[in-house]
């Protein structure tokens, strides 16, 4: 029986995080009232002309540099086709000379996925189908919102180097992390600022042929991407195995049934009649400008991993993955830079901090570093408590400690505290000393309830066991 493998290439469209649109001064923002962030240019009114947003080019170059692409002089082309959401009935895009050519994304597994190109283009408006079945063919009428028209997009096209649904998800999540790290995108798939099309075919293992591919359009979450590819790969394999063939077509993923379905009954061969956009001169970035942009690139997720594993060869890769994310990384850097043990920084960052970072308030990276550094004086549970309190506390770290009412406790103090609880619970204590381990939880609970702000659970447990050994040994 034939063994099959999937051959997958992805096209990722990301909205670039510019203040204004690609060719006009309208705000590039999500969530405006329909058709309020528009002007003659992005409405494609007769006589209007595009003027290129330099910031979009800079972001494109940042991404290209992060993907090790060749950043080059480039040219816009017109892609001609009729569609109601496209106000000029052509899209200004890049064709044979994109701003970024070549490149690669290295996945966590070490697998290298080649990049064909990452080019600039304008987004279209958005159709909202009303009535009927709510799809373009069967709706009663459609409304068009042109707020999105002219929003800058970077289309990143991969080589067909991806060989499973899981790898596709890994690729997109790594690419997303790079886009966020470079400041090019906010990476929000649910708001459509990251959209993925997948080109999928299968072939017998060992073969190098490229069979007919199917394009799956606009999958809007990582999970859906995995499901859509998984379904499509199985569909193609069973088609071939039953002696059938695969049609080159565009399919969309139906969330409810988990199936991919043909988008149109009739597949039209589109001829986009590309030609150079006469309204825009070629983009010719100066080498000095490219060098400046490359020089300003932050450390990317892959580099962050290398740094952490370099410091801690045995680090947990789950913790590292949390630590290299855009939100958590600045805290990790701050902790390591003031000299806290990297293991400690990693543990607090990957656990306690990761839960707080979405709404961190006064807990800045610097404050995080200061608090984690206190773990030499305080117990881990005290430090965790301090981190939590730091979110809403505006003051110095000493004031924070004072406010929470902590003082550092020596072993002597801990024994005294445990002793107090022991005296108050003689019956439980007797059973514990006699070997009934079940009551340990009760006793420790009492200790923590009373003294939890001052001592850690581990300290209390150690002191309790020490006292018990003393009592048993007489």
């Amino acid at each position, binding site marked *: 029986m034939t063994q099959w493998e999937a051959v997958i290439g992805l096209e990722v469209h990301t909205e670039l995080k510019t203040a204004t649109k690609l060719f006009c001064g309208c705000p590039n923002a999500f969530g405006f009232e329909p058709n309020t962030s528009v002007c*003659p240019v992005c*409405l*494609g*009114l*007769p*006589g*209007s*002309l*595009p*003027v*290129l947003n330099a910031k979009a080019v800079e972001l494109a170059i940042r991404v290209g540099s992060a993907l090790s692409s060749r950043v080059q002089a480039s040219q816009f082309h*017109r892609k*001609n086709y*009729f569609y*109601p959401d496209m*106000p*000029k*009935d*052509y899209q200004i895009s890049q064709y044979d000379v994109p701003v970024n050519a070549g490149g690669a994304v290295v996945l966590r597994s070490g697998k290298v996925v080649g990049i064909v190109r990452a080019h600039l283009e304008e987004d279209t408006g958005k159709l909202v189908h009303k009535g009927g079945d709510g799809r373009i063919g069967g709706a009663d009428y*459609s409304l*068009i919102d042109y707020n999105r028209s002219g929003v800058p997009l970077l289309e990143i096209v991969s080589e067909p180097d991806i060989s499973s649904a899981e790898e596709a998800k890994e690729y997109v999540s790594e690419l997303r992390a790079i886009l966020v790290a470079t400041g090019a995108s906010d990476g929000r798939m649910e708001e459509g600022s990251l959209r993925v099309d997948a080109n999928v075919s299968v072939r017998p293992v060992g073969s190098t042929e490229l069979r007919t591919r199917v394009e799956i359009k606009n999958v809007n979450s990582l999970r859906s991407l995995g499901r859509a590819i998984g379904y499509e790969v199985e569909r193609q394999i069973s088609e071939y195995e039953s002696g059938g063939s695969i049609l080159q077509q565009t399919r969309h993923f139906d969330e409810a049934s988990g199936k991919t379905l043909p988008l149109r009954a009739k597949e039209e061969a589109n*001829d986009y*009649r*590309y*030609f150079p956009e*006469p*309204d*825009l*001169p070629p983009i010719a970035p100066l080498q000095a400008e490219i060098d400046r942009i490359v020089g300003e690139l932050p450390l990317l997720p892959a580099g962050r991993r290398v740094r952490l594993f370099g410091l801690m060869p045995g680090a947990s890769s789950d913790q590292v993955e949390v630590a290299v994310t855009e939100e958590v990384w600045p805290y990790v850097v701050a902790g390591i830079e003031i000299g806290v043990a990297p293991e400690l920084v990693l543990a607090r960052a990957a656990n306690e901090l990761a839960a707080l970072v979405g709404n961190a308030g006064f807990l800045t990276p610097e404050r995080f570093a200061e608090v984690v550094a206190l773990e030499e004086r305080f117990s881990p549970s005290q430090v965790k408590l301090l981190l939590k309190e730091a979110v809403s506390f505006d003051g110095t770290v000493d004031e924070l400690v004072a406010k929470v009412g902590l003082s550092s406790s020596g072993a002597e103090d801990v024994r005294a505290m445990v002793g107090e609880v022991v005296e108050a619970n003689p019956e439980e204590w007797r059973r514990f000393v006699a070997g009934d381990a079940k009551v340990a939880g009760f006793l420790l609970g009492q200790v923590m309830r009373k003294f939890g702000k001052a001592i850690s659970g581990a300290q209390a447990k150690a002191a309790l066991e020490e006292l018990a050994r003393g009592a048993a040994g007489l």
Partner: protein
Amino acid sequence: MTDGILTLDAGALSAAVRSGEVTAVEAVEAYLAQVAVQEPEVDAFLSLDADAAIAAAEAVDRARASGAALGPLAGVPVAFKDNLCTTAFPTTAASKILEGWVPPYNATVVDRVLAAGAIAIGKTNLDEFAMGSSTENSGYKITRNPHDLDRVPGGSSGGSAAVIASRMALLALGSDTGGSIRQPASLSGIVGLKPTYGRVSRYGLLAYASSLDQIGPMAATVKDAALMAEVIFGHDPMDATSLRAPIPALVNALMEGVTSFRVGLVSDLLEVASPAVASAVGRAAATLAQLGAKVETISIPELALGLPAYYVVAPAEASSNLARYDGVRYGFRGNGETAEEMMVASRSEGFGDEVKRRIMLGTYALSAGYYDAFYLRAQRVRSLVRTAFQEAYSRFDLLLSPTSPTTAFKIGERSEDPVEMYRSDVCTIPSNLSGDPAISVPFGDEDGLPIGVQLMGPALSEERLLRAAFALESARAEEGER
């Protein structure tokens, strides 16, 4: 003074308005009276607004009364070709597909002309979307040549040319993609300047062929054309192809003569001209020589290749530029059950035959499998033309040729034969392909029909072109006085 208003040129009228000798209202009324007489015969306007013109003139007079400084075109009546966006008038490009459409913004040139104090009289007729050489392709009406009402005024800026020739306005704006300012200027006996590509902002010009389109002044005299050029030249941040070159003082340079100029008489373009036109161009060459220029004949065979290259590049760009007229957002909407049917109906019913012909030509030229043979090859020819001009301009300051091979032809005479019509532009197209400036200036006539001669120059040589045109114009005037 008010009796002589129609005899003043734009500079003089504006000076009179600024000094208070003539009010802007008096100036506009004199021109509106002329419109009342001429327009029923000439049919040059697609929209006219006398009340608005009077109101604008009153505003200029009030500004003067309040002590405000008035602009260089204060009180001067102007007309705009109807492919320039205006908020005060509908803008249709003479196409049914845009019937009644009023843009929400003014073209940059319109803003500049109005800011200079000019008074807009109306919008002028053209071949639909500027595609044509006779103004017969208008979706609305036929404009007649004021010199002979049975003949065309030329095109596509035929309405603007006819307005100036019949003195219904003092200045007009046209657009020139393959000769659409110069050819009607020639046929209607006025001055038309196509500036260097990028000299004048195209923002607000309804695009026909974006890499060739250029807006320019049309006027009764070279001096008026120079005055208007000074107002409309200059960089515009809304047009990425707009140049940042400084604006020369054009009017003040006119008198500087042509003594140092090396002028090339282009033999290849003389050969395509009628005997009367060729002879007028010969006399123009002799006149320039008499005035001290060094005139020599030059052959530039590549220029003949311009015509076929143009009729690939221009329709290709047009096929894309005109895609947006689909009935979805503005203008005429046809009926259809689906969005696609509606778009097809809108375009089938909204566009005229010549526009459809060029959309089809251009679509074909850009199609997969034909792109290399047509579009790419035409672009290579365009490079050849550009190189040939560069070579010529290394030896000559200016080139001299006919503007149009013939004088104005009869209405209907060429409308059945598109290719014959296309040949009307053979002398003017090369400068569009190279992006260089060129001017047409009246120089003689044939049986009362005006003949224009064309001066061409390298990029940014408008000052030189205007000086030479002014010299020819002055020489003709002296000849007339003798």
